[in-house]
């Protein structure tokens, strides 16, 4: 192999591999905690990025560039799956405590300082995929409603309603944990 090719690879590794944790973290949440799927997603992202490395502008944000490739790669897979029937409708899931139970029990939000993060992460992972993806893109990644709508190929109004229901579902899970911990009655 040629020396320039080796140099190019070394340069890519120096710039890109330091973002492996962040990429894996995003992939894991998008995949709902499915580690093999998340690792495949990271590897595919790295391969695409490496092949496109000549088009990366040195000095710009490499992390953001890689995260965008990962998001787009995931979304392509997600859209291909969309023709499949959705196994469980959110509406059909068992009713949880009222959507404001957590606020009513703990209006100052002290639970957020005490809850074990892994429990909330598990609750995000358990969301039906079309809700989880909206939450991850919006709440963890900070994308706008419009950006989420375009990526997921759904109307902005649907993004809003999915975020509302998913967030209330997460608060319902937090409330249940708070009760289990004896933190609220």
């Amino acid at each position, binding site marked *: *192999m040629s020396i320039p*090719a*080796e140099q*190019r*690879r070394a340069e*890519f*590794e120096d710039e890109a*591999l330091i973002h*492996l*944790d962040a*990429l*894996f*973290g*995003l992939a*894991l*949440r998008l995949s709902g905690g499915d*580690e093999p799927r998340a*690792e495949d997603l*990271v*590897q595919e992202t*790295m*391969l695409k990025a*490496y*092949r496109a490395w000549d088009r990366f502008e040195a000095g710009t944000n490499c992390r953001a560039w890689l995260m965008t490739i990962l998001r787009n790669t995931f979304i392509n897979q997600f859209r291909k799956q969309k023709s499949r029937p959705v196994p469980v409708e959110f509406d059909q899931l068992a009713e949880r405590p009222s959507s*404001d139970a957590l*606020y009513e029990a703990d*209006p*100052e*939000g002290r639970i*957020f300082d005490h809850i074990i*993060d892994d429990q*909330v*992460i598990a609750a*995000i992972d358990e969301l039906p995929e079309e809700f989880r993806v909206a*939450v*991850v893109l*919006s*709440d*963890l*990644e*900070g994308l*706008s*409603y419009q950006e989420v709508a375009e990526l997921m190929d759904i109307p902005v109004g649907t993004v*809003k309603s999915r*975020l*509302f229901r998913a*967030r209330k579902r*997460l*608060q319902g899970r937090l409330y249940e944990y708070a009760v289990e911990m004896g933190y609220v009655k």
Partner: protein
Amino acid sequence: MTECSTPPTGAERPGEPKLSCEEALARVYEYLDGELGAADHDAVRRHLEKCRNCYPHFDFERLFLDYVHELGAGEKARPGLEDRVREMLAAETD
């Protein structure tokens, strides 16, 4: 800013939209996500300045969103992934 009970009873300038608590709370996420247009954002903000029922609820939702946002950080790639990526890149370079 003087506090008032809900629904807000403070004097509104004529012609400005006045929100009920229900209307304000229906917009809580759009408000906190910065997704409302300027007029709607101002209408919610004015409601919050006067309504001591809604303000704590909005504060709570803001804490919740901040908490969820922070969850995004801290995950570590599993051992072996970096080696597999390096091997893949080496194979691609050949």
